[in-house]
């Protein structure tokens, strides 16, 4: 079990942090120091985007999970090698500018108390994710479909509720996040149910709050009590997000490893961060770096992996944020990279309508 947990930790923390170096350059230059959190989240988005591109053709051609696992492994290895090369070149070419609002900043007592409270509430969520079970009907589909793939290698050709053979379940097959869960279960040797209900919630809840932390640093670069109070309020809003069964916060804590929850509480907040970054760079008369566009394209593709509807949702958000940014700054040329970033969601939507 411990070996399995270490393997999952390597696949969901170490691997994304390494791959994230591909796109973290502009963010870290601005910050004045390296940002493992940004690397982690953006690296995971790139890996999910890659997973989508590898898995969908394989599922449509009735491939097996083992093939997917092999191809995803090769892709991950290539990304790691590219990231290492990029990191080496970057370190050789520059020294990081120290930001006064960065690590060395002394925190006042109020800020320390607020960070402490936020940390306690965050840890409480992790403990509850492990200690409490939720009677979630949709898990009977998503976890079972992962378990079937993990055990027999068949992807979306077995009825998860009963075990009977069926035709391709297209609605779910074009958003194969459960196959990512199955891959983690297969390589770690830990059953899909334990991966989806205990291990991934710990990883994904942390990653979601990591994204909120990145937003806090973007909104309050000076850090201090502003960022601390922001994070404390986020913790409270998430913990008290049970006002509706449908809220993104409720999905984060209740259905954590389901694609829909990842879309609502991780991918969409990360898109907000990228939109804000792009708008601030445009405001400062800068041209957004290619790495920002790559991150954006990867996050949009990750949205497609999460849910079939995710393609439309992220495209709609991109459209709204894109139109507002372009119109506010009258920078019409921004439409070109924005349209490029939308390639995956548009292709996935077209594929769905063509095959359905």
């Amino acid at each position: 079990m411990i070996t399995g947990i270490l393997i999952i930790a390597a696949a969901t923390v170490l691997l994304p942090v390494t791959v994230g170096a591909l796109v973290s350059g502009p963010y870290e230059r601005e910050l004045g120091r390296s940002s493992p959190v940004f690397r982690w989240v953006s690296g995971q988005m790139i890996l999910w985007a890659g997973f989508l591109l590898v898995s969908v053709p394989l599922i449509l051609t009735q491939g097996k999970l083992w093939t997917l696992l092999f191809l995803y492994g090769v892709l991950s290895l290539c990304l790691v090698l590219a990231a290492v090369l990029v990191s080496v070149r970057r370190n050789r070419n520059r020294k990081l500018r120290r930001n006064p609002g960065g690590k060395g900043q002394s925190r006042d007592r109020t800020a320390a108390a607020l960070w402490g409270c936020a940390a306690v509430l965050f840890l409480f969520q992790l403990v509850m994710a492990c200690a409490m079970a939720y009677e979630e009907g949709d898990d009977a589909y998503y976890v079972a479909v992962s378990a079937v793939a993990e055990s027999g290698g068949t992807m979306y050709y077995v009825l998860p509720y009963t075990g009977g053979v069926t035709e391709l379940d297209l609605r779910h097959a074009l958003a194969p996040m459960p196959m990512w869960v199955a891959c983690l279960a297969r390589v770690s040797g830990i059953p899909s149910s334990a991966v989806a209900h205990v291990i991934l919630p710990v990883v994904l809840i942390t990653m979601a709050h990591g994204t909120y932390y990145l937003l806090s640093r973007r909104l309050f670069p000076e850090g201090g009590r502003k960022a601390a109070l922001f994070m404390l309020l986020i913790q409270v809003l998430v913990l008290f997000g049970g006002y509706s069964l449908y809220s993104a916060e409720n999905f984060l804590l209740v259905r954590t490893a389901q694609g829909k929850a990842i879309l609502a509480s991780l991918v969409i907040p990360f898109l907000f961060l990228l939109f804000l970054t792009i708008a601030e760079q445009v405001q400062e008369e800068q041209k957004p770096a290619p790495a920002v566009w790559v991150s954006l394209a990867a996050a949009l593709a990750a949205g497609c992996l999460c849910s079939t509807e995710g393609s439309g949702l992220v495209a709609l958000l991109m459209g709204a944020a894109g139109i507002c940014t372009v119109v506010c700054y009258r920078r019409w040329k921004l439409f070109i990279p924005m349209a490029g970033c939308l390639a995956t969601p548009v292709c996935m939507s077209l594929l769905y309508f063509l095959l359905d």
Partner: protein
Amino acid sequence: MGNALKVLQEYMGTGGVLILFLFAVIYLYLREKRKPRRILFVYVPILLLVLILNPLFFRLLREMDVVYFRLFWLLPVIVEIAYCAVMICETQKGRAYAALAVVFVTLTAALGRPVYQNPLYSPAENIYHVPDSVVHICDAIQVPGREVMALFPEELLLYVRQYSPVVCMPYGREVLTGVYDALHETACAEKVDMEQLVPLSREKSCHYLIFPQKQRFSREPSDYGWEVFLETDGYTVYRDTGVELAVPEE
């Protein structure tokens, strides 16, 4: 707007968080001067709300079978509320700041509802987050190298195939959502009619049949070739000897 508003009402539940969010949009519209933040916190939410609450857009997406409430995930609800609260607190200093911060934390908690208060939560019985009974029964009935067909009581249907993909069931979660299944109807009766159940379960090749220990039957199960295979966690597992279970040779 009628129907889209209804979805918004359902999505926002008690409505307190919606009020906070709308307050934050208005506050930031009036006070936030930095353009990138106005775009994220004012223009994008307003544009999305106008679009999502538009009846034509609602009708179009409903025809495409879109689950409409998910569109509200695109609104930066909690980020905007938290950001607005911090900006308001920053207008004060010293004790007033602390008091305002406490007010906002209390308000956000009071207007929401604790996620863990949901009655569907229960202490996890094992690392798989499925009932122990499912683990014990599935472990007992599994046969290496092949699948087995087992009829489970309603309360265990959600969990069986999450734990073991080699245990198949004649019906699954769909019956809990109202899909009719004759075998399910017969097996869930207060007093199970064996004359009706046995042919139906054999038609579906059920090797094992699991019932609560207190389950009443019209006649003794042993009269129909059912042997008690296991008694565990308040359930009796019957093996129907009338359905062949060939074990593959190694």
